């Protein structure tokens, strides 16, 4: 039986990703107002008193719901909600992960950051695990990331803020994985953990979005921050609070963190930015790679299920991309790349062969490739020995050439 995970804010940017990553290991209950695909719904609202009965039969909770604009829900009721939720989870003895933010601080420029700090202070003593993501990007263009994608698409030049603020981008799926990992790490309870990438200049991040996500490289233009703040103050009057100067401040005045220890505690390897920004293309390339490896090593098609697992497994293991050099080798030369030493290096072409074989063997459609039928006679055995010798000779003959091809590209 899969365990039951309750999620507040399951419809949000991180929420949708979390639901996708949690299933099928978890059965997800959305606590909120609107139905979420693939989840059962239990009514719950940030601005109403929390009813502990919604946690009936629940094995773990992730609290994502928040008022990101800092205006629609009173900060006090957000804190009260989180506190009541944490107390209820503690009373039931189930783990709770609370999403906070890198900008959480009692002296944060935005109400959002201050509210997050108050929530942290309330839930940590109650044994919750707080996750502080950096700038979340990837997947559907929603949240702050959605705004930045829209901006990159519309602007003819990319603003390169001066002085250069740094952001610490983290893929939304990596955030979701970190939260799921935290649920199974009871020794982290009562701790706040940063889940954020290495610092990167804000302008460089926009450029990466334009180049890898939109495939429209743009020139950068230096923009001093002070006049921009003024412009935003004006814009927020006209267009609403989504573009407030406080929002700019929470971007340019982010305290930098070194998240390496926390990520290690969570067992999370962040995907590279480029790979995170081109999910569709990377995934297609991985599917194609898995299929070629299956043809080369199993001499049969892998099938959709195994390929989908292959394309999910590699990013989950910190390998976001297909091997470009491998893609250029003809199928017949692929066996040449598999040597005992090459298998040891995570991410290497030969290591990928091992991943595909493990996944194929654990699939009922392909497992026959790994088994022999009843009473195989001596003749068949001799045939298999001959085949093995023939494959190995071919592999050895092609190896110098394949190595050159692989070497050229690396």
């Amino acid at each position, binding site marked *: 039986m899969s365990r039951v995970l309750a999620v507040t804010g399951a419809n949000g940017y991180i929420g949708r990703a979390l639901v996708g990553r949690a299933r099928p290991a978890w059965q997800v209950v959305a606590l909120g107002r609107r139905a979420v695909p693939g989840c059962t719904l239990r009514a719950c609202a940030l601005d109403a008193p929390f009813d502990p009965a919604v946690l009936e039969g629940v094995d773990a909770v992730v609290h994502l719901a928040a008022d990101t604009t800092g205006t629609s829900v009173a900060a006090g009721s957000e804190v009260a909600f989180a506190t009541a939720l944490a107390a209820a989870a503690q009373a039931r003895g189930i783990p709770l992960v609370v999403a906070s933010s890198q900008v959480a601080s009692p002296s944060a420029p935005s109400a959002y950051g201050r509210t997050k700090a108050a929530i942290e202070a309330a839930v940590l003593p109650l044994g919750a695990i707080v996750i502080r993501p950096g700038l979340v990007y990837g997947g559907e263009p929603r949240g702050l990331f959605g705004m930045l994608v829209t901006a990159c698409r519309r602007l003819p030049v990319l603003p390169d803020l001066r002085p250069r603020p740094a952001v610490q981008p983290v893929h939304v799926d990596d955030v979701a994985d970190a939260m799921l990992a935290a649920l199974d790490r009871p020794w982290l*309870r009562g701790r706040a953990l940063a889940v954020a990438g290495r610092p990167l200049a804000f302008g460089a991040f926009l450029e990466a979005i334009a180049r890898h996500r939109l495939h429209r490289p743009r020139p950068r233009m230096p923009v001093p921050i002070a006049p921009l703040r003024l412009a935003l103050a004006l814009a927020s009057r006209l267009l609403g609070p989504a573009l407030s100067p406080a929002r700019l401040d929470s971007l340019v005045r982010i305290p930098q963190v070194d998240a390496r220890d926390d990520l290690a505690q969570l067992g999370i390897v962040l995907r590279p930015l480029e790979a995170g920004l081109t999910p569709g293309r990377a995934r297609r390339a991985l599917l194609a790679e898995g299929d070629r490896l299956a043809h080369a090593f199993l001499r049969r098609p892998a099938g959709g299920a195994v390929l989908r*697992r292959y394309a999910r*497994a590699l990013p989950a293991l910190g390998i976001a991309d297909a091997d470009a050099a491998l893609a250029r080798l003809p199928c017949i030369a692929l*066996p040449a790349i*598999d040597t005992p030493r090459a298998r040891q290096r995570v991410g290497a072409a030969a290591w990928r062969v091992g991943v595909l074989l493990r996944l194929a063997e654990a699939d009922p459609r392909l497992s026959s490739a790994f088994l022999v039928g009843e*009473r195989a006679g001596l003749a068949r055995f001799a045939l*298999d020995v001959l085949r093995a010798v023939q494959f190995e000779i071919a592999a050895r003959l092609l190896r110098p050439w394949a190595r050159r091809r692989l070497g050229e590209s690396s």
Partner: protein
Amino acid sequence: MSEAVDDFLVVGAGPAGTSAALALAEAGCRVRLVDAGTARISLPPPGDFASLRAADAVQWMWQIGAAYTALAARPGTSPKLRVPGFRSIFDGYAEANRIVGEDGFHVVGALAAGGLSNAWGCGVAAFDDEELDELGVAGRAQMRTSYARVATRMGISGASDDALTSLAGVDEWAEPGVELDALHARLWARRERLAHGPLRLGRARVAVITRPRAGREACDLSGMCLWGCARRATWSAALDADALAGHPGVRLDAGHVVERLLRDGDAWRLECSTRDGPRVLRARRVLLAAGTLASTRLALAALASPPREVRMLSNPMAAFLLLLPAALGEPRGRAFGLAQLAFAIEDARLPRAFGNLFSTAGLPLSEFLEHAPVSRAAALPLFRRLLPATVVANMFLPGEWSSHRVALDAEGALHVRAGFAEGLDGALAGLRGLLAPSLRRLGAWMLPGSFVAGVPGADIHYAATLPIRAHPGAAHECDVDGQVAGLPGVYAVDGASLPVLPAKAHTLSLMANADRIARGLAGRGAG
């Protein structure tokens, strides 16, 4: 925040901790048992390996794991450590207990109730009088009683009048063994050919039941041992933890990692971290059973002047594959997945060695392909023919062939530095040279290139850091009652206090020792 003072507090609900807690509870003492874990292993669906392989559409979930755990784990270690269902119990032990492996030392431990026995090989043996020399006459007599108590509780099998009967020393409590599969039956039928040689072959003595017992079904040769026994035929301390949870004299606190031990009047203060934040427990008697490494860290850190470093023993190990050419092409039947046969080597020129032979039936072929000396495109058609006629073997050397060192750093973390005795490589080569011709007499060929020495720590037989001595000299040694010399009221009851680590399965002995120490404490009262 003044907690009541417990009479007895046991740290860790693995084989040692549950053995000690059960002995105390049965004697009418009130016991608090704290354990770091809250997770349990997840078991695969019921059924035998071959049928599940053919029919279970989501078998990748228990073989690889929804988070692709099996693919992420480190190579060069036991396939057990890659089983996704066990991930929740192995994860985080080193971090939570602040243990750092150095020089390639592979730290393995378990945070869950049941400890490492959730995923053990189930081998059982009793230490002989010479091995228990430090315990003295009375201590050895108590151990006999404890072996009987523990072995009867677990349910063990493999009794047989063979060349290993006295080495195992457990047959008086054991049922006959499970049915041998065709490969092992072949080897077994030829055992007379080893007469007078240095290689001794016997049935493996294992903690698996061949007749149903309360809440457990008998082994049905499903071959699923590696993945977790849905029938609970293989014993694990999680069974005892469940029994303890229902015991009126026992309080079980899960999710508690003990951080520090401090003397507090005539009692001990235990600073724990829990899901609800820090918590302080107090007890007059503390029994350390957190696993050798974690227990050692707690004990050393509590000492007024801890030694700069202490020695730790583990069994250097090797593994190899045996091919039975006569069995090539034969169909594969159902097979028990843990040790079916065992061997010992007695040769004056070489260290004593002990090993087990296992069926390959419940193992994925890709495990073996990983080690193929040729391209896997070539190895696959060959290996799938060879594997059904192949047996896996492991081999352990006595603990004195290891010389690991453990030491506290300034922050209180425990560093484990790997080390082996001089001449280990030569000894292993000698053993291999002796094994190959002996096994050929049984009709088994050691596959060339398959003999591999284990990485340091991969045996997971960590022991003897706080060894029991008849006359404890150094502060970290234990007296015969298990009390750490410099820490009155603190008893080491897990592998840490084993006086020696011979080349044989040691779990039964550390359980019996925990039972013996706890019975002694119960007899003397909480005073």
